[in-house]
């Protein structure tokens, strides 16, 4: 290993006086010997006599060496490296903090250290400290499934119960071919539990001995089946009370075959305080449902009551709530002409997993500002009257600090506007606070409040349709014949609220689904378009998505996250429908507060410059018709027009500040091999991609563009990372299935009139997330610490031969 890399990382973070001490002592993270993950930050503390200075020494061998009459706990190999420290001024020790090297191949290597200081009191004039060490441990992801294309293995967090499970250990982790190891699948433990108990007990009854082949160094050759679908998920017996989405397991490759986990020797997937190596997940689409309220983990009781005008409530809760503690609350706000009793498909499902769900009467006919008022009034009413509603059955059982708001159409706008009222101080909650609203989920929302609700045409209530910093989620029904999404009306543009949200935001867009399919009332689908899937199929998708959505944001559930971002073609609830007509596009964007690193989001309108990314990286491209700007279909329809570059993108409104959402992006075309290159050199020194897990971006096919209509299918392209040494690695976005979906082939008319000529509705974004470590599979050697280029490559050599694309939100995320 190279100590120069360590030297480069060393940073003296404190230089403080310490009391006189008789001995020199060094500790790492407060201990003498530790095991730490590659890339982890550690802190060395050195204490010595006041006024003295010395050297902090590192070596790869701790064989004692006699020198100048002193015994050094280091071998003084050619790799010896020293760092001056001191002078000690008395007080606290000098502390040195640094990041351990990243390369996975350092697994099992130990760095030894000691300090020596000048000591006039000793015969040699030196005092030598104790010896310490840090052993490096790679923390590979292991669980997943093989894939036919590079990177040849999809590492996953969630695995549907019954699915075959595999593991893979790429050769970069240092385990040589010819090695034999025992592989254990064990019940998940936290890191602390692993530290306390290293005994390996395989849940399959016995471990599995694996021979890593000699000669075959590919990850394909180092992938092995772990289980054929027998691993237990949560108890899905109706009424069993097991509300977990998944059961966590860890995988240990017991290299020394001693039946114990030896950190720094063995490999483990799941050494973490919060997250297991993988989770076997249940069929999240199964739960209480209309006519079958007892199908889920808890039987559900449903009650109807009213507290007065527009305070009618349809509330669902686990029937044995009296035996339970406080349960998170989900509030549902219906749309115009709808009814508060039309959401039992969500109420029964969620309540059967341990939520209180209250769907309320909503005053929607005057508008969505009144709907917002209804939402606030109903929530306050419920929380304030728990003692009297239904004889007090809910009293003390509602966790008012974990609330989700779900709204539909005008009610979907209403929930965002309710949040806006609190955010802007126009409304002060009595029985909850703004921090308690953990999620806003809007189904086919109208946009009546605009950016801030200030404009006269928006009523001047100072009440915007703006989710601000709330975690926001959007449901889009592509065949919606009410909130139809056409560019002709700001009020029914689908994505404005989503684009205004400033923190975490995500969406699901379902093809063939009508406005009425989102509820469970007696009216029709209110749908127009091809391949309509109907209400029952829609509800199957909804149940399987709504539960993970709520679980993730109200309870922090980890395996639920996979359902929110993995391509529907690749991963979906067991009971979710699939078929040529069933299409669900997902967007998933983490909050800025998640410490993600934005490479380019095009969000600085003052610096519109195709050659410069938001991050400071420079951009060059050979694609054609590249335009960066507001994502606004700037006319009234979706007809292809070369002068309307963002045709089909209704995310923003260029023309009216009151209805804007400040959503910027890029569009371009290609019909031959071409690329967009992000040159990261301007930011390379500050970009260590080992710190991030995913490259994330969203892409959309431009609707009705000749290059889109020429090939109506999922569009794919390559993404390449290039490091400072010119090493490259490429992953195709369709490697694990899917791609960028073609627009829904809806045609001319809506209830409100035509939306131009041609076929194809909105230009639909999907988020693509590529695991950064995957770029290192099979010995590419790409140094994630020194990535200099990110290249999007298009054309027949890289996937779809032609296309019209929108590209946005290019960022590196932590999870």
């Amino acid at each position, binding site marked *: 290993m190279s100590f120069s890399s360590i030297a480069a990382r060393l940073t003296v973070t404190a230089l403080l006086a310490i009391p006189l001490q008789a001995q020199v002592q060094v500790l790492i993270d407060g201990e003498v010997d530790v095991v730490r993950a590659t890339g982890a930050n550690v802190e060395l503390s050195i204490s010595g006599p006041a006024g003295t200075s010395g050297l902090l020494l590192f070596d790869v061998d701790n064989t004692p060496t006699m020198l100048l009459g002193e015994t050094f706990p280091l071998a003084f190999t050619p790799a010896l490296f020293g760092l001056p420290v001191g002078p000690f001024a008395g007080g606290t020790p000098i502390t040195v903090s640094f990041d351990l090297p990243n390369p996975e191949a350092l697994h099992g290597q130990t760095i030894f250290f000691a300090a020596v200081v000048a000591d006039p009191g000793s015969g040699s004039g030196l005092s030598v400290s104790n010896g310490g060490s840090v052993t490096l441990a790679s923390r590979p992801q292991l669980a997943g499934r093989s894939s036919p294309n590079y990177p040849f293995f999809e590492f996953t967090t969630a695995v549907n119960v019954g699915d075959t499970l595999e593991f893979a250990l790429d050769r970069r982790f240092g385990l040589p071919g010819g090695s034999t190891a025992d592989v254990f699948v064990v019940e998940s433990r936290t890191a602390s539990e692993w530290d306390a108990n290293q005994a390996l007990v395989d849940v399959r009854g016995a471990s599995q001995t694996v021979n890593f082949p000699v000669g075959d160094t590919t990850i394909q050759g180092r992938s092995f089946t772990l289980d054929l679908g027998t691993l237990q998920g949560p108890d899905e017996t109706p009424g069993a009370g097991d509300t977990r989405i998944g059961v966590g397991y860890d995988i240990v490759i017991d290299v020394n075959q001693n039946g114990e986990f030896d950190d720094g020797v063995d490999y483990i997937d799941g050494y973490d305080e919060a997250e297991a190596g993988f989770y076997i997940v249940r069929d999240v689409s199964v739960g209480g449902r209309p006519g079958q309220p007892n199908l889920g983990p808890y039987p559900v009781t449903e009650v*109807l*009551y*009213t*507290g*007065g*005008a527009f*305070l*009618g409530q349809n509330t669902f809760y686990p029937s044995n709530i009296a035996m339970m503690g406080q349960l998170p609350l989900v509030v549902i706000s219906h*749309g*115009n*002409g709808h*009814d*508060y*009793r039309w959401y039992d498909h969500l109420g029964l499902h969620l309540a059967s997993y341990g939520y209180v769900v209250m769907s309320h*009467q909503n*005053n929607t006919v*005057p*508008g*969505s*500002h*009144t709907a917002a008022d209804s939402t606030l009034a109903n929530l306050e009413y419920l929380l304030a*009257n728990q003692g*009297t509603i239904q004889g007090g059955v809910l009293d003390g059982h509602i966790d008012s600090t974990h609330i989700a708001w779900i709204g539909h*159409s*005008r009610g979907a706008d209403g929930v965002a506007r309710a949040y806006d009222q609190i955010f802007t101080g126009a409304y002060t909650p009595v029985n909850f606070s703004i921090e308690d609203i953990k999620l806003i989920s809007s189904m*086919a929302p*109208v946009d*009546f409040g605009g950016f801030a609700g200030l404009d*006269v*045409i*928006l*009523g*001047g*209530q100072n009440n915007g349709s703006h989710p601000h910093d709330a975690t926001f989620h959007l449901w889009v029904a592509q065949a919606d014949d*009410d*909130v139809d999404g056409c*560019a*002709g*009306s*700001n*009020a*029914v543009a689908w994505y404005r609220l989503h684009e205004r949200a400033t923190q975490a935001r995500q969406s699901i867009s379902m093809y063939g689904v009508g*406005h009425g399919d989102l509820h469970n*009332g007696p009216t029709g689908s209110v749908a127009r378009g091809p391949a309509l899937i109907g209400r029952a199929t829609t509800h199957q998708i909804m149940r399987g998505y709504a539960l993970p959505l709520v679980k993730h944001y109200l309870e922090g559930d980890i395996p639920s996250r996979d359902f929110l971002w993995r391509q529907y073609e690749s991963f979906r609830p067991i009971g979710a429908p699939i078929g040529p007509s069933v299409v669900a596009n997902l967007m998933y964007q983490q909050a800025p507060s998640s410490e993600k690193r934005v490479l380019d989001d095009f969000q600085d309108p003052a610096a519109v410059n195709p050659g410069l990314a938001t991050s400071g990286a420079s951009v060059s491209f050979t694609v054609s018709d590249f335009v960066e700007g507001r994502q*606004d*279909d*700037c*006319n*009234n329809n979706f007809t292809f*027009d070369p002068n*309307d570059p963002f045709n089909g993108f209704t995310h923003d*409104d*260029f*023309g*009216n500040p009151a*209805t804007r959402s400040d959503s910027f992006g890029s569009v371009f075309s290609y019909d031959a091999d071409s690329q967009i290159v992000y040159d990261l050199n301007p930011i390379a020194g500050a970009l260590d991609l080992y710190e991030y897990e995913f490259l994330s971006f969203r892409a959309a096919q431009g609707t009705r563009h000749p290059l889109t209509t020429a090939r109506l299918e999922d569009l794919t392209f390559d993404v390449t990372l290039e490091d400072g040494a010119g090493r490259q690695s490429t992953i195709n976005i369709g490697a694990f299935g899917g791609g960028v979906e073609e627009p829904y082939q809806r045609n001319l008319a809506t*209830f*409100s*009139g*035509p939306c131009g000529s041609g076929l194809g509705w909105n230009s639909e974004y999907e988020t693509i997330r590529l695991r950064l470590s995957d770029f290192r599979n099979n010995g590419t050697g790409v140094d994630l610490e020194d990535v200099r280029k990110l290249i999007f490559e298009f054309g027949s050599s890289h996937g779809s031969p032609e296309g019209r694309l929108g590209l946005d939100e290019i960022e590196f995320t932590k999870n």
Partner: protein
Amino acid sequence: MTSHTSTSKTTLWTVLGVLAAAVILTTVVLDQSTPVNSDESDSESSRPLATRPLAEQPRIVFARPFQVAKPFRHVWHHEEPLVDSGFLVVLDAGDRDLRPRQNKESVLQIGGCVVDRINTGEGSGHLVVIVPEVDSLFGKPAFFGKPDLPEQMTAQKRSDALAEAVQFGNVAAGETEIRATMVEGLLEVADDFELRLAAIDLVERFAPDEEALISGWRVPRVR
């Protein structure tokens, strides 16, 4: 005489209706030829709309004065005035398409007042509304105005809508005609919830197909 007046009005409305329809059609044709690059900022009015002021006015078939002990906000006006009296009214909207929509809908006014619609009227054509005593029920036409949100209807917009409705030929029903519908006396209730329950009784009577709405209001009240 009454019959003659009615016939005359019908004839007049028919003529005006044809004229109005011609205006609407002209507007639609013009709208469809909107230049490609115009933004949608003004598109709420430029896009073809299913609902426009129609010559056929809603007709009052029932009216009953009310008084509430506890005033409530009339959120159908931007100003949200407090209301303690007014009329429960049933309007016959004929064969007008009353299917609820999420986008802006034609605003139903009586005179300069946007009425509080209790039911959709889809199917029966009968709309039960609360008319707050912020404007007289008498001497003012009932009409469907341009698509908008009632909560955004300022006094100016309501006044403009009324003027436009009159321009379109909407006329007030005769006071005698209205009074003939007032077969029940003053309704005195405690609050707007009780008022709405009384309105729901009227929905049951005039629009019995709206069973879901009716039952949704008649759930047990928490005391």
